[in-house]
């Protein structure tokens, strides 16, 4: 009962932030104008602003936030480590590498889903590598070290590809791919990301029972009817789908998958399956809030989303490392 109340509250928060996100922008529309334009299509310019600029932006914030929150909660549940986060351990960075390769080799232009699928491949490679390096028995240190290595490699290769591109704007986009932004995205990007995300959400949502059982460790879970092989495969595929699709259209946004599960874990009684649902909503709320904030702080500049999420997330990350160390994990 309390859990459903929490979900209802988080849902209401997401809805409220979604509405605010639709109302914030340099065009200076009143809420009444905005609504009339969005729903009834009143005014050519207003309708273009609402339907083609603000709506996709708000939708992407929800989709990407939900994805990152869910992916973070799922990875932490599997690795039984609160430090596992797609951005920090290089999964987002590798997805960005895949996306950049697709954009600058022409793969993205050659077929519709080329961009998100390439990002998915990058993310899948990184998750796979991390699970091999820091999977069963690997502690926090292994996880963080593996994450540093994967992130550094993905970041360097992304920079390399962008520097080699003949496009004069490519090199200046390194920051976008590393920090992420939702500025001036369109419905094209929503449709590009949505199919893979839906698949990923479904895969990750099915993990709840297995992740709960893993609370007792791999052996205990395996003898409680959980197939660890299947669990691992679904996790890799699910995380790759949601992080790949999100990064392909908005760059790598870090710390969402760290901050949100951390805040919500005590509220849901730490149960991994409940944390999946709560973090999905919480992630959507966090990215919406961050994207509203970047528009309020520097309205006419494209302040990167990852800057804000890192300012909130990095101190928390340090705190978690400190606590992990103190507990001798």
């Amino acid at each position, binding site marked *: 009962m309390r859990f459903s109340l929490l979900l209802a509250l988080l849902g209401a928060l997401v809805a409220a932030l979604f509405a605010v996100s639709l109302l914030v922008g340099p065009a200076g529309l009143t809420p009444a104008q905005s609504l009339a334009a969005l729903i009834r299509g009143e005014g050519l310019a207003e309708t273009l602003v609402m339907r083609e600029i603000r709506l996709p932006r708000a939708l992407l914030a929800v989709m990407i936030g939900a994805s990152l929150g869910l992916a973070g909660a799922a990875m932490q549940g599997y690795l039984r480590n609160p430090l596992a986060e797609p951005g920090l351990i290089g999964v987002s960075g590798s997805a960005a590498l895949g996306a950049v390769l697709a954009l600058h080799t022409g793969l993205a232009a050659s077929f519709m889903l080329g961009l998100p699928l390439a990002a998915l491949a990058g993310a899948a490679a990184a998750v796979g590598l991390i699970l091999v390096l820091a999977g069963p028995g690997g502690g926090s240190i292994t996880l963080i070290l593996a994450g540093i290595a994967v992130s550094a490699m993905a970041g360097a290769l992304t920079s390399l590809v962008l520097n080699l591109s003949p496009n004069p704007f490519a090199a200046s986009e390194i920051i976008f791919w590393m920090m992420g932004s939702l500025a001036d995205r369109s419905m094209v990007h929503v449709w590009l990301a949505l199919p893979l995300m839906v698949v990923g959400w479904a895969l990750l949502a099915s993990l709840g029972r297995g992740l709960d059982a893993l609370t007792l460790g791999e052996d*205990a879970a395996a003898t409680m009817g959980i197939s660890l092989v299947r669990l691992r495969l679904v996790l890799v595929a699910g995380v790759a789908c949601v992080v790949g699709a999100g990064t392909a259209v908005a760059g790598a946004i870090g710390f969402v998958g760290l901050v949100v599960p951390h805040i919500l874990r005590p509220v849901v009684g730490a*149960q991994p399956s409940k944390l999946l649902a709560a973090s999905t909503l919480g992630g959507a709320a966090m990215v919406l809030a961050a994207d509203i904030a970047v528009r309020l702080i520097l309205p006419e500049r494209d302040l990167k989303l990852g800057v804000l999420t890192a300012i909130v997330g990095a101190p928390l990350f340090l705190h978690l490392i400190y606590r992990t160390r103190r507990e001798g994990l």
Partner: protein
Amino acid sequence: MTNAPLLSLRDFSVARGPCDVLRDVSLGISAGECVGLIGPNGAGKTTLMRAALGLMPARGQSSLAALDRLARARTVAWMPQQREIAWPVSVETLIALGRNPHRAPGHAQSAEDRAAINAAITRMGLEGFRTRAANQLSGGEQARVLIARALAQETPLLMADEPTAGLDPANQITLMELFATQAADGHAVLTSLHDLGLAARHCTRLLVLHRGRLVADGPPEAVLTPDLLAEVFQISAHFAQSPQGPVFQPLGVIR
């Protein structure tokens, strides 16, 4: 009560690299038995149990490993030596995990599930701990919670790897008495133990592993002979029947 064995191993071997760490073990465990698995460090006790459960590759036959995942989860509850509780979930939530094999995915707990959980909580004296975070309890309390989880699984067979390690004497005795009661109630228990005194007092049958082979199998008084103790454990011991039951006390190391 004795009918088809709940666990049977036939010519069971486990290899690690080129050499066998477990060789040609055959045995059967039936309802009503409380079986202690003893042997020195590195004898292969954990390997035997994990491989029998199908958690690691093995040659030969194991009735448990042959079952599908769900059927196995309804046949045997397993308590690994590592008492792992990764998250600060409530005691009740943790114990409820034992009901996983009985509950279809996406379904709420049935009355039967709740009854099993409540019974396990009462049995382990955890009534006052229901809402406490399980990983913040003391070692002994955590052990009781994990046993309650295994009990809630309501399987005919319970397997535990050194469940008494790290427990105080009262907790050790309570645990062994619980296993004996389970067996007397028609379940079967297989537990590895280092404390031969506990094994002698509470088990109906002992299995002795030595260098990967099963070297003795029988009631404690038949197994714990001075020759076997010297050969396998390199100790001498005092073992006698007293009015309060069997008493076993290691005395010294034989060099």
